[in-house]
């Protein structure tokens, strides 16, 4: 066990999984960096340095740069997976899914079902999500809600270094296509991470705070906001369950429903746009399956239904934050 950043936990996982299994390959734009330049290869190891050191250890066949061709990157991953490899590809920003969605949505996710079973597509699309860096409307979006809507696709949203390593290992070793959303604002956060490999089973949520007055379900970076609010409210004698589902597909419905049955109140914090987002999805789950346990209307904290603005003051207003979450919890508790 040692303290590692979210970034280093992911990088370590990639190294260890490549070591374990020769079929694991890594490709994408600039994942080596410096191909075809005077400075030479491995000039960077990914624009966020997540793939650093892989090419030096595993060589050209297993770690390579691609042209800017998102559709071919994801499609090649799907084809390679059908043919026996375990590709881990990088799409620098999930906003670029617009260009490669067909290969996820109509191809990889459906093979096993359409082909009547027997199709293994062990591929992982690593990508980044999240606003908060003034990266504006095309480099900040949260779109895991739409990928969650695709039957056959698994969707992972690690919120801390430990989960990042364990979920990525599970994704790489599984047999289904996975989208692994790294929150770019979390790359620097640190936490305890075992040095050895381990897997976190998909579909198992993490109860990050325990309480009896309300249940807060939060995703990705929002988990940290929910935890901070729960800690602050605890000082006022209000205690909350905070649930980090960790994966939206599969989803740990049981953990959420059981918690709400105990607390009677639900607040969901999500960074997707509100329409057809995760917040309403969780609200729908609870309203349809645990309505009789609810003591108050469900509260949702999401951005407004707008694109993401550039100006920092507007982006700040766009995002959920601790004040908004605290207000929602207090409201659910009838103004306590």
């Amino acid at each position, binding site marked *: 066990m040692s303290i590692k950043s979210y970034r280093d936990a992911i990088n370590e996982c990639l190294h260890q999984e490549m070591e374990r299994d020769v079929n694991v390959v890594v490709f994408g*734009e*600039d994942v080596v*960096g*410096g*191909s*075809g*330049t*005077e*400075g*030479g290869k491995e*000039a*960077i190891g990914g*624009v966020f340095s997540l793939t650093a050191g892989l090419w030096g250890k595993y060589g050209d066949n297993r770690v390579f*740069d691609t*042209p*800017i*061709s*998102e*559709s*071919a990157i994801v499609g090649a991953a799907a084809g390679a997976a059908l043919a026996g490899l375990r590709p881990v590809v990088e799409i620098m920003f999930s*906003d*670029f899914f*617009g*260009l490669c969605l067909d290969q996820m949505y109509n191809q990889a996710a459906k093979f096993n079902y359409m082909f009547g079973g027997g199709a293994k597509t062990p591929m992982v699309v690593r990508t980044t999500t999240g606003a908060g*860096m*003034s*990266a*504006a*409307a*095309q*480099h900040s979006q949260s779109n895991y809600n739409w990928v969650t809507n695709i039957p056959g696709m698994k969707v992972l949203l690690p919120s801390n270094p430990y989960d990042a390593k364990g979920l990525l290992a599970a994704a790489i070793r599984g047999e289904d296509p996975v989208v692994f959303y790294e929150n770019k604002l979390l790359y620097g956060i640190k936490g305890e991470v075992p040095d050895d490999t381990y897997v976190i089973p998909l579909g198992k949520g993490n109860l990050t705070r325990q309480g009896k007055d309300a249940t807060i379900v939060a995703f990705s970076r929002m988990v940290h906001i929910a935890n901070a609010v729960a800690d602050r409210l605890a000082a006022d004698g209000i205690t909350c369950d905070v649930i980090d589902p960790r994966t939206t597909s599969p989803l740990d419905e049981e953990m959420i429903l059981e918690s709400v049955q105990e607390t009677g109140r639900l607040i969901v914090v999500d960074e997707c746009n509100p329409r057809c987002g995760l917040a309403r999805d969780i609200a729908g789950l609870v309203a349809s399956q645990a309505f009789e346990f609810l003591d108050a209307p469900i509260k949702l904290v999401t951005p*407004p*239904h*707008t*694109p993401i*603005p*550039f*100006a*920092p*003051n*507007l982006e700040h*207003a*766009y995002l959920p934050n601790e004040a908004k979450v605290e207000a929602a919890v207090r409201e659910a508790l009838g103004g306590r």
Partner: protein
Amino acid sequence: MQLNRDQLERAYRQMKTIREFEERLHIEIGLGEIPGFTHLYAGQEACAVGVCEALTNEDYIVSTHRGHGHCIAKGCDVPGMMKEIYGKAGGLCDGKGGSMHIADLNKGMLGANGIVGGGPPLAVGAAIAARNAGNGRVAVAFGGDGSCNQGTVFEAMNMAVVLKAPVIFVFENNGYSEHTGVSYAVGSGDISARSAAFGMPAIKADGSDFFSVYEATCEAVERARNGGGPSSLEFAICRYYGHAEGEPQRYRGKGEVARLRETMDCLTHFRRKVGEAQLLSPERLDEIDVEVLELIESSVQGARTAPLPPAEALFTNVYNAY
């Protein structure tokens, strides 16, 4: 295509404005004044200005993530651009777009673009609209060497040929897409050969020479306006700064940028050419330099002191009608 004195002065002024705009941004970004990701165009000025000098105000351009030069060359308001990049009220996009999304539809500038390969299909569409209106306008799709590997660009080029759309695909080949060299990422190494294979004339020219860029563009524009369909222009050029500001540029050769600034500088080339031909005096160019620096200084001051966008701006403009 003989350029008169006014045109030459305008071309120089625009190139110099782009250069000083970017040099100043480089400093301001270093000071932490500017939010977000910024991709500087310094070094490539002759491409934007040479192309746009061959266009009218009514013609269309679509740009890229590295869009400041295209904006200035197409006539976007410089103080308004600066405010936009600072995320302030009164910016060209009211602070909602930022460096990567500057647009001015009244100037035919259909937007910088954060998606590599996002622009060329838009240019084809604008060209179809111009064709149908019979207004003689053309559309230019700016893109980098890296963009030519995107399927959207292939599709746009083929469709433009099929439809004889008055569009010009401009590839600014600065040798790199982020940290990857063009010799690695472009299979044949030859962007123009690809364009030609789609069935359009494809010209290569020196992107550091304003006059070469201008002449090649004039020819393509004339063809497009006369119903001759699309063309492709590939300009060899260099970028002086990193892919985006703050990037360490470990992939570059030793002393590469200094050498490029020494040998490939478009402003130096321009000054030499107009001097040798006695078209513009060095004194006149120096005067322009001073005026440009004043404009940049006042733009920065204006951006610094401009108010933040009002809170309600978050909610406006999602739709035109609610």
